[in-house]
């Protein structure tokens, strides 16, 4: 047993300085079967499933910073599968099912809390759209419940459902199996499991170029020297365009910052994940008691992991209008993460024109919930050189053929998910 009441006590008395390391810190070998570029949630999940599902363990995950520095440690922790497009429903519900068993699979508590995800709507047109979405979900066996105004008020009493609210509430679509997951634990759990299966996780190792010969990948250059590999898998979220450009690829992606905010901690007051329908705003209470919420993208290309005041102000205004009891809470922190926004709002898991080089990205600001199935299907693609059926339509070629997966049914704007 690694952890016990006895070990807790012993380590408390010795200043928490003597815990055994949870994963090794190896130097890179000169060659691997597979190199994964990027040790975020998706890269680490891919490594775990390469070992678990395909028996491929001669693998390195190269991470330019420390594990969890990217979006995996910056997101709002919401997981759900309430999508409209059939491909997305199937993919994200597979992911929700993996979340349901993940703590057991990893033997690491990722603190899944299926407290329900409620999308509130305010107009008859929004209600029609939500009913359509709920029906699309139900057709694939996914849970969706339509609530009227009184039921919304009963489930989440702090929502202002009065008729003179700034945007009166009409009802909501509830996905009871949705909820939240402790984001850092996901990175740590996958890393620990991958490491235990023999995968090298190498931090502070930035990939600076690819070795490509006759259209085939041979390895990477890095700040720790060249490393050869039979296959290389890109998985770098907000830096997708920059890393792909080193292999000569141009992507249908722009990088944009999304902010999250957290208030001072308060006693339990919100036990559902809720999104507002009149503007972009979602809120969840963390286990520590802070109210964690997010709003819109800042709205212009950005690689600066910090956000602006205008968007912060508008998200705070949403909170105060939707749940007036929060208007006097103090904000503790706000931060930003760089999201790889695709032109149709859906992700890309694909082979590339370079043989042996794979690309996973374009997660927009909804990729946390996708982490398990992203890793599952990417590992399948890398192992078999053939896409997994759940991700077959997330190809790069869809932008050429016109087979877009466009949840919002609008034009090519890199601002949706």
């Amino acid at each position, binding site marked *: 047993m690694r952890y016990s009441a006895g070990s807790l006590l012993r380590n408390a008395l010795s200043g928490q300085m003597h815990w055994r390391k949870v994963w090794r810190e190896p130097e890179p070998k000169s060659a691997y079967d597979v190199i994964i570029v990027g040790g975020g949630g998706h890269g680490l999940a891919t490594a775990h499933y390469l070992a678990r599902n395909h028996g491929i363990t001669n693998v390195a995950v190269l991470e330019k910073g420390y594990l969890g520095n990217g979006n995996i440690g910056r997101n709002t922790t919401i997981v759900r599968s309430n999508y409209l497009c059939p491909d997305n429903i199937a993919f994200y519900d597979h992911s929700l099912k993996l979340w349901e068993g993940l703590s057991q699979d990893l033997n690491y508590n990722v603190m899944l809390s299926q407290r329900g995800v409620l999308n509130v709507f305010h107009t008859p047109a929004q209600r029609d759209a939500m009913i359509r979405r709920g029906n699309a979900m139900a057709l694939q066996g996914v849970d969706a419940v339509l609530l009227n105004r009184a039921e919304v008020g009963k489930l989440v009493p702090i929502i202002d459902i009065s008729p003179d609210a700034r945007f009166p509430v009409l009802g909501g679509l509830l996905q009871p199996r949705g909820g939240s997951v402790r984001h850092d634990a996901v990175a740590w759990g996958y890393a620990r499991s991958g490491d235990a299966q023999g995968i090298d996780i190498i931090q502070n190792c930035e990939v600076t170029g690819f070795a490509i010969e006759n259209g085939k990948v041979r390895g990477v250059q890095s700040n720790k020297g060249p490393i050869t590999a039979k296959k290389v898998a890109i998985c770098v979220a907000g830096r997708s*365009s920059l890393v792909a450009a080193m292999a000569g690829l*141009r*992507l*249908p992606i722009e*990088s944009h910052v999304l902010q999250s905010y957290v208030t001072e901690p308060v006693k339990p007051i919100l036990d559902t994940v809720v999104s507002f329908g009149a503007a972009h705003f979602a809120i969840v209470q963390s286990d520590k008691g802070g109210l964690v919420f997010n709003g819109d993208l800042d709205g212009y*290309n950005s*690689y600066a992991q910090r956000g*602006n005041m205008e968007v912060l102000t508008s998200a705070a205004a949403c909170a105060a209008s939707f749940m007036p009891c929060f208007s006097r809470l103090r904000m503790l922190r706000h931060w930003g993460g760089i999201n790889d926004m695709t*032109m149709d709002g859906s992700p890309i898991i694909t082979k590339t024109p370079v043989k042996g080089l794979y690309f996973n990205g374009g997660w927009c600001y909804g990729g946390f919930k996708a982490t398990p199935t992203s890793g599952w299907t990417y590992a399948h693609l890398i192992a078999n050189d053939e896409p997994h059926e759940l991700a077959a339509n997330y190809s790069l070629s869809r932008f*050429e053929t016109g087979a877009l997966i466009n949840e919002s049914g609008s034009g090519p704007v890199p601002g949706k998910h």
Partner: protein
Amino acid sequence: MRIDCPWCGSRPLHEYAYSGDATTKRPDAERDADLSVWMDHVYLRDNPAGLHKEYWHHVSGCRSLLVVTRDTTTHLIESVSLAVQPSKGGKK
């Protein structure tokens, strides 16, 4: 972030609307039948970390369309110009 509009001077961000990469060029519908040219224009972006040439519309001001060169890692603005030069007016 503030943008220095050539007509209105330095104005706050919320007066402007962003319209994306200003380097892509709409193909000529008559001549550029090749789909890859359109694919390039509609979907593909350089998405640089560093200087980026982009359109901003001064919607709540003079309503001019501006071309701004901004560093996407710092948000420092290097230059601002009008996307379309005004005609001189009067006789030609």
